[in-house]
């Protein structure tokens, strides 16, 4: 069993609120500097920037989970990760169908730039990505799992856009591999405050919108390797694998 440092919640320039410095190249550089072994690329309602980050990071020996931070109809933010490129594209198709067409106002929300490995802008996403999908949280969760993906309700301790702030409590029947906490709360207090059993895995991540925030919170994954299957087993706490959130490590 090995230990891997992971920050599974990082935005890029594609997110309107993501800093223009959050190019794939800069993200990979910063992740290497912070000695992360695994990062998650999670732009709002889009997976389009994730694959180029994965390719770049691969050259540096860093693994990438490609996915998105989905805003459900109830405006709950949830991380979704797909097991491979084929299914990432299928999930992207789902997002495209479910995203209401509201033009982005760059002056108000920021740029939504899709860039290549050398920071060249390929296109600007015209639809506002930070709005809620037409699909509710249950539908999103089922689609992610139908595609063999991972579903992690994000920053559950935040007072907006968290499963508790929007829905009051976790709906029965909702399946998730873990719940995410921010760097502003300890694991203990999060479990106590929301009544989360020890059997449920908590991940801690940075939700970085600026390079310096990458790795500001991370999780230690105890598992054999960085494959998607191992990551899933670690999140589920199976066969001796586990995940230990480190929410306040780098404060």
């Amino acid at each position, binding site marked *: 069993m090995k230990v891997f440092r992971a920050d599974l919640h990082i935005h890029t320039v594609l997110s309107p609120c993501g800093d223009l410095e959050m190019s794939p190249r800069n993200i990979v550089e910063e992740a290497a500097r912070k000695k992360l072994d695994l990062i998650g690329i999670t732009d709002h309602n889009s997976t389009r920037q994730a694959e180029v980050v994965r390719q770049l990071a691969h050259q540096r020996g860093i693994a990438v989970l490609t996915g998105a931070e989905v805003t459900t*109809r*109830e405006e709950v933010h949830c991380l979704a990760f797909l097991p491979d490129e084929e299914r990432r594209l299928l999930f992207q198709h789902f997002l495209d169908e479910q995203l209401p067409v509201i033009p982005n106002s760059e002056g108000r929300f920021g740029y939504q730039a899709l860039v290549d490995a050398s920071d060249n802008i390929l296109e600007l996403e015209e639809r506002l990505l930070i709005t809620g999908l037409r699909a*509710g*949280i*249950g539908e999103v969760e089922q689609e992610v799992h139908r595609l063999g993906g991972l579903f992690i309700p994000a920053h559950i301790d935040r007072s907006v856009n968290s499963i*508790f*702030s*929007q*829905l*009051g*409590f976790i*709906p029965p*029947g909702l399946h998730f591999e873990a719940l995410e906490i921010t760097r502003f709360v300890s694991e203990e207090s999060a479990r106590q405050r929301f009544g989360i059993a020890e059997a449920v895995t908590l991940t801690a991540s940075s939700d970085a919108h600026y390079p310096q925030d990458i790795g500001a919170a991370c999780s230690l994954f105890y598992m054999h390797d960085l494959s998607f299957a191992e990551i899933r087993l670690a999140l589920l706490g199976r066969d001796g694998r586990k995940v230990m959130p480190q929410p306040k490590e780098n404060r």
Partner: protein
Amino acid sequence: MKVSDLVKEFQLTVFSGESGLDREVEGGYVSDLLSDVMGFSRENQVWITLQTHQNVVAIASLKDLAAVILVKGFRPEERMLEHSNNEGIPVLGTSLSTFEIAGKLYRLLCPEEILPPAV
């Protein structure tokens, strides 16, 4: 005033929870944040919202609310219908916006609070 009186007065659609149409109505609460409703609504209030999630009925039941009114033509999700029928909490619908239906409900329930037109 009963829930059934509101249905008649505002021509509301009754989606589910018919067994609760006799519930007494003592006020209203307007919010789309379920955690807010959980914290601040009071029993026998009618909850006006655009949320169609199953948790809406769970919270309405927990807080002993009289009924839920979905605005702007929104329809309840399948699980919401089931919960509503099981709990006997009516889920109603209107094509009006939150502002309009809340205004009408306020006028009906609190007529003494409405000032007469200025002369």
